[in-house]
Every structure is written in structure tokens, then in C-alpha cells.
């Protein structure tokens, strides 16, 4: 058994791992007469960070939306347990690219936690129990000090950490992240990738992330998928970055 195989086997024995592998077969998305994705084949293993890279308009966010069930797709999407038995829809954590909030919105981080993860109405006094839980949840992404801040007052990096913390409650089996194109400083990005690396190890879950920072991806991702309407290359970051397609698309960028 090669190194990679050993890794996968170990990962699937983890305590949180109800899901072993997400298998995307022949996935295609057509909206109107526009074919956005076709013939996409991917295997995503738990305990691994899979980063999706590609040019603008490559269909990266659409792929996440297809996995979420937001857009209709052809082909199949299978979630398999370690025993190989097919599983119903797993718990999916999702970190959106941005929120639809204007900067003056009177919504605090605690409010967002309340609407996302509790039944306690955010317009009434939030019980201490819920507040305590919110703090605990946010601390997983080093964001507990932001509890009473307004969402509009957070920096891009802070908001990102809050959203990741929320996506981890309840602990998902598959975590999907749509990284913002801009708005996060280099320092924040570095912190964000370190956080993801830790999460992957601590919770043993599959992470699929749309990414725009090739440099960080090369250092932190376990697998890289180069997407442009279909999968052009996939494998370790080193393999993908050495491929002909990668050079064609990102020529002159790095």
C-alpha cells in the first residue's frame, strides 16, 4: 500500500468520520444554454484539504453550489462511508464567499450565532446558556472575542473566522469553503490557512475549498484540482503545478 492509501485508511478510522469519501462522477451543470461544468470527476477523502483553483468563470463556485444542492446538476454525487456503504446526505458545513449585509446592519456576531445555531429568537434577550455556547463555538476559530461586535465592523479575515466557526457547529462531515477573492490581508489569509490545517487534523473531515491564493494553497492543501469547466488536472500541489494545463492558465502570474 502506498503512502497515500495508508493515510486514507487511518483517516477513516477517526471518531468523527461518518463519511469516508465524497465521489463526484460525471457531474455537469447547464444553466439555460450555457454549459458551466461538464464531466467533472473528483474523489475527496476525509482528513484532506482539497483546493479548487482555476481562472475566473471556471465554475468553481458553481461546483460548490452543485454539491450543496443549490443548482441542478447531471451525473452523480455519492457520499460513502468507510465501509463503502452509501450514505444519505452528510452534514455539510458551508462557508460562503460573503454575506448580504450592508455595513450598517445592526447584526452582531452573537445574533448570527443565534439565528444559525439556536432556537432562541435574536430579537429577545439571548440566554446566558446560548451566549456561552456561542463563545465556545467561536473559540474554535479564535474568534470568541468578536462575540458582541457588529458583523459590518469586522475585517475580512475576522468575518471569515466567524463563518468557519459557525460551519463547525455541528461538526460537519464535509466542509465547503468559498474563499473571497479580496478583502483579506496577507496576514489574515495565512492565519486562515493555518486554522484550516488544524481543523482538518482535529476533526478529520473532508474540506473542499475554492481558493485564489496559489502560494498558500501550495503549502497547505493536500490535493489540488485545476478546474476550467471540467477537471484539467488533479493531484498533489506539486503534480498539478507542474502540469501543462497549469502553466497555460497561470502563465505569467507567479
Amino acid at each position, binding site marked *: 500500500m502506498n503512502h497515500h492509501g495508508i493515510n486514507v485508511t487511518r483517516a477513516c478510522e477517526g471518531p468523527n468520520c461518518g463519511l469516508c469519501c465524497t465521489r463526484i462522477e460525471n457531474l455537469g451543470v447547464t444553466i439555460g444554454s450555457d454549459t458551466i461544468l461538464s464531466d467533472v470527476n473528483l474523489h475527496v477523502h476525509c482528513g484532506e484539504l482539497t483546493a479548487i483553483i482555476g481562472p475566473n468563470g471556471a465554475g468553481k463556485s458553481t461546483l460548490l*453550489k452543485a454539491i*450543496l444542492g443549490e443548482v441542478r446538476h447531471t451525473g452523480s454525487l455519492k457520499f460513502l462511508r468507510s465501509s463503502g456503504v452509501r450514505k444519505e446526505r452528510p452534514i455539510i458545513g458551508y462557508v460562503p464567499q460573503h454575506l*448580504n449585509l450592508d455595513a*450598517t446592519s445592526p447584526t452582531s456576531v452573537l445574533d448570527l450565532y443565534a*439565528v*444559525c445555531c439556536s432556537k*432562541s429568537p435574536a430579537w429577545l434577550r439571548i440566554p446566558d446558556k446560548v451566549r456561552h455556547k456561542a463563545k465556545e463555538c467561536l473559540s474554535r476559530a479564535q474568534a470568541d472575542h468578536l462575540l458582541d461586535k457588529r458583523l459590518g465592523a469586522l475585517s475580512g479575515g475576522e468575518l471569515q473566522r466567524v463563518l468557519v466557526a459557525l460551519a463547525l457547529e455541528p461538526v460537519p462531515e464535509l466542509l465547503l469553503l468559498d474563499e473571497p477573492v479580496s478583502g483579506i490581508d496577507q496576514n489574515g489569509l495565512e492565519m486562515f490557512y493555518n486554522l484550516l490545517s488544524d481543523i482538518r487534523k482535529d476533526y478529520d473531515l473532508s474540506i473542499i475549498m475554492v481558493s485564489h491564493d496559489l502560494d498558500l494553497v501550495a503549502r497547505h492543501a493536500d490535493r489540488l484540482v485545476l478546474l476550467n469547466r471540467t477537471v484539467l488536472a488533479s493531484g498533489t500541489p506539486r503534480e498539478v503545478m507542474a502540469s501543462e494545463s497549469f502553466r497555460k492558465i497561470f502563465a505569467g502570474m507567479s
Partner: protein
Amino acid sequence: MELWYNLVDLLPFEWAEPGRMLFMKNALLAIILLAPIFGTLGTMIVNNQMAFFSDALGHGAFTGIVIGGLAGFLQPMWSAVAFSLVFSVGISVVHHKTRMSSDTIIGVFSSFAVAAGIFLATLGGKSFAKLNSYLVGSILSITPSEIGIIAVILVLVLIYWYFFFNRLLFASINPVLARSRGVRTFWLETLFSMAIAVLVTVSMSWIGLLVINSFLVLPAAAARNLARNQRQYHLIAVAISLFSGVSGLIASYYTETASGATIVLITAVIFLLTLLARRRSA
């Protein structure tokens, strides 16, 4: 009602003297019950940038009243409620299906409703004048049984808000994220539109079509300038709504103006003040 009259009798106004001006006392109670409803639901109207939408619902309700009058119902209000419910669901479905810009769709529906209302009302050379009361509104004409209806609506709105607010806010913050956690956003938002449709239709004859949207939008918009979380947002919106409602009604008694418009003027001044307060703190 007796208890209420006895209470108001304690106030130091000439109209508050025992046994006098019961219509004024009815109106005061009505405003006190209406203010929290508008203040509360308005917070979400502003969150979702639905100001134009709620305005259109008023137009739909107006058409409903005209149709109800034509069909010879004694109480055109109920046919108006039915019509504006259909109208609000219509806008939601068309918006959902066509992915057209929502303000275009709302504009189309709104213009259609108003034109149809005026067309039907004036059909056969009839005068429009009898409908003026719906445009300007009169809270002073409210009856105790109508106040009962408002009280019931207030209780229903509070129950609705207790159970549905979190999901509404979640869908407003990010619908994809909300759906990924099992929130059925389309039905949720349609139900909210229907609630607004009922509220606007029922209270149109008291507040007036021309200013009713301000009752929804202004208190929340002003509260937004000051609030830092949802609790403050609701508290301030309801407080502003109550304050301007009560003071506007009393002021309209002395200035002999339409109470709906007087209340809106006071709310608008409060909005300007909060805007200045925000500029200073920012």
C-alpha cells in the same frame, strides 16, 4: 374599553376629560397597539431592502378594496385582504421564477394594481372621491371592535416573530447558507410577504395608503442608525414607532391635520436626528 377610558381620563388634555371625545381615546389605544406591529415587522423590511415591495403591497390592497366595493361586499376589507395576499404571492413567485431584478417586477405589479384600481373605480363615469378616505386614512374613525382586531393581529405577529424571526434573518444574511442548514427560504419569505400584505391592507383605512409605507420603513431605518444588535434594533424601532404614533396623534388633534401624515412627519424628524447622531459617532 371602560378600563382604558378610565385610564386615559387621568391624562391632562382637554379631550381626555371623562365622557368626552371617545373617538380620540379609541384612536390612542389603536395607535399604541399598531405601533409595535409596524415597528417590529419594519425591521425585516429594512434588512431585506423591501421598502419598495411593501409600498407595492399597499397598491395591491387598494385595488382589492375597489374590487370588493364593486362586488358589493359590505366589508370590502376582507376581499382586499384576499386580493393583496394573491398579489404578494404573485410577486414572490414571478420574482423566484424569472430571476428578473426585483424592483422591475415590483414596479410592474405595483403600476398594474394602481391602474386597475383607478380604472375599475371610475368605470361608467363614477366619482373617485369616495375612495379618498383610503388614500389619506383616518384613525379617528376606528371602532372598539376594530381595535379588537388589531389586538389579535398584535398577538399573532408576536407569536409569528418568536418562531420565524431567526430563520428570516438567517435567509436575509445569506440564503445559500440558510438553505444549507435546512431553512426553506422561499416559503419563509412568501409567508412574510403575506403577513405584510395583511397588515397593510387591514390598516390602510386608518393610516392612509399614501403614508402607510413610512410606518413600516421609517422607525426601523431610524433605529438602524443607533442599534448595534438585533435586540437594540427592535427596542429602538418600537420605541420610536410608539413615541411618534402617540405624539403625532395628539399633535394632529391640535393642528387639525390628518393623523397618519402627522405621525410620519414626526418619525421623519426622528430619522434625521438619528442620522446626525450616527455621523457624529462614526
